[in-house]
């Protein structure tokens, strides 16, 4: 398989994953904030094809869960009550990408079906995981976009104009590189308001994440601009009287495309992780809006850790995404076997 077709396949798989999360409302059976007070901390339901009398059914079904007698958090399957899983059912209203209002869900049942169990408020974990992906991935994507735009502007300015401007910008970049980025994230978040409504908190997190990481892409872009501006066709264009802005736009910045793309593939998972970290620690997107980070936050309590293992399941959600981005980054980087120190520090 050629490198190009591998790249296309990888990008297609990654794209499909993102589309799946964008259509979370369709894939998720319930509203992520809908509470079921009768079923707090219900374990994942098992799907059956064979009933108790040995009859085989084509349509999968689950047994309704009821509290075990004498306990307050242990459930048992009520085999007398089967819930057949129905597909393409009408359920809780949702919006796709914030515009298209729909009620259609991939699956559902006459009674609640919790494939991954529920949390302490009886909210369906699968639905929360899917909707949480929207928040986390969006934060990562916008954060990476922000960082790359800042990095591109600063790197291009430093490389193109050179002189004392270059010197000053690169010193500041070194300052940002020297700080441990998680501390930087914390420090910036520390001095911003703590209790804010979800939408504002989301924007705040995105801006903080985006503002922290610009130094590395800026240095890379600067290096490319430095070498690109000495290329013969650029000199020729300058000789014909091209202005600085035109030169940058038409001849120099296109040269940085590859580096910017590679950096994007490296930065997005890193920033998704940053959002998760902040939200996990309670500094990011607050309840009841789900995000991959705050879904894991309840595991900070010992009793949840000890009794309700399925609360850990959301941790697996980002694995396919991170795998996709890792492969994408290495494919974009090309065949060079030597990893660069610069890139390594992204992961340390």
């Amino acid at each position, binding site marked *: 398989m050629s490198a190009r077709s591998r790249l296309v396949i990888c990008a297609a798989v990654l794209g499909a994953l993102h589309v799946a999360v964008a259509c979370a409302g369709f894939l998720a059976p319930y509203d992520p904030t809908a509470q079921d007070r009768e079923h707090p901390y219900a374990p994942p339901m098992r799907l059956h094809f064979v009933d108790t009398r040995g009859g085989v059914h084509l349509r999968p079904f689950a047994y309704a869960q009821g509290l075990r007698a004498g306990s307050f958090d242990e459930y048992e399957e009520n085999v007398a009550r089967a819930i057949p899983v129905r597909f393409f059912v009408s359920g809780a209203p949702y919006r796709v990408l914030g515009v298209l209002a729909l009620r259609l869900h991939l699956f559902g049942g006459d009674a609640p079906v919790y494939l991954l169990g529920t949390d302490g408020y009886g909210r369906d974990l699968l639905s929360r995981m899917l909707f949480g992906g929207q928040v986390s991935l969006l934060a990562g994507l916008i954060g990476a976009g922000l960082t790359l735009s800042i990095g591109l502007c600063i790197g291009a300015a430093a490389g193109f104009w050179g002189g004392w401007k270059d010197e000053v910008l690169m*010193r500041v970049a070194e300052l940002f590189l020297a*700080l*441990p980025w998680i501390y930087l994230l914390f420090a910036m978040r520390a001095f911003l308001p703590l209790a804010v409504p979800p939408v504002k908190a989301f924007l705040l997190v995105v801006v903080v994440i985006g503002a922290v990481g610009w130094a590395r892409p800026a240095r890379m872009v600067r290096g490319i601009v430095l070498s690109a501006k000495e290329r013969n066709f650029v000199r020729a264009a300058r000789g014909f009287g091209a202005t600085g802005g035109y030169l940058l736009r038409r001849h120099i910045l296109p040269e940085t495309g590859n580096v910017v793309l590679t950096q994007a593939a490296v930065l997005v998972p890193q920033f998704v992780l940053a959002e998760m970290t902040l939200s996990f*620690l309670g500094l990011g997107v607050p309840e009841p809006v789900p995000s991959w980070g705050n879904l894991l936050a309840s595991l900070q309590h010992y009793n949840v850790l000890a009794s309700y293992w399925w609360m850990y399941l959301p941790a697996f959600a*980002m694995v396919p995404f991170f795998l996709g981005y*890792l492969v994408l980054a290495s494919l974009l980087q090309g065949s060079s076997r030597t990893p660069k120190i610069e890139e390594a520090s992204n992961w340390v």
Partner: protein
Amino acid sequence: MMRFLLRRLGHAAFLLLGVSVLAFAFSTLAPGNYFDEMRLNPQISAERLSALRAKYQVDRPVAVRYERWAVALLHGDLGFSFAYNTPVAPLLWTRARNTLLLTGTATLLVWMLALPLGVWSAERLGRPVDVALSWATAVLLIVPDLALALGLLVLAVRSGWLPTGGMVSVGFEGFSLGQKIRDLALHMVLPVTVLVASALPVLLRHVRAAVAEALEASFLRAAEGHGIPRWRLLYRYALPAAAHPLIALFGFSLGALLSGSLLVEVVMSWPGLGPFLLEAILARDLYVVIGGVLLSTLFLVAGNFAADLLLYWADPRIRAGAPER
């Protein structure tokens, strides 16, 4: 030599200055301070509050506060914690010691694992061992330390094999020395595992790449032709030739000693700098936050400086005054 050293030192000083200014600049953006919440407390009178505000000078302009703080810093005083009502420095020091115990062990382990594994992998490039190691590092790269730490905790709680969180058991003071060491070691297993697992893949990849590149050099083929044993060839010839990027990375891991384990400490409730700093952030305990950030920056800068010195010692090209990097 002197000029090289001085330039590096100047650079480090500039970085520390910049970080402290940056931290203070962020603090002016902050809405509210430690004493704002006290206004809601009916047991604290308005006079008492304004006396406190005056005492800690939170209402003075930021430039004045910065100047006073910087002067105090030069006298070895990191400021005063509002929440603990004691100087910051001793507080930070006890926490930093715990963090260093954790990260020092992890860093040592990671290098002891990465060097032989990386050399082994580079020697057998493309063979099953190398492929298996590459897959293992890829898996470790994908799983973030947050997920890994939580997963190990879930396993530990369910199996009951290892203590889950904290640094020592209840009643630690009454233990004999042997018991103390055993208890501490058991508590360290989980956090150290997570730290090693998150740092190992990056290191392993670099060692492998650097050694593989060195192995292609013709002087090594010549040495091989002279009949120098394989082991000696790998560790005495190839590894030093591959040292340059590894030394830079070593400086990196030295620098990350205080900052690398922050999240793991919070998840595993290790009483290090991480949870302490988080708590200070939530309480707006300004000088603790700035002190913590500055201390970890100091480590980073020192790590880089150490790497520079090591490079100077190890790489004759730098000593000869050739352009750096």
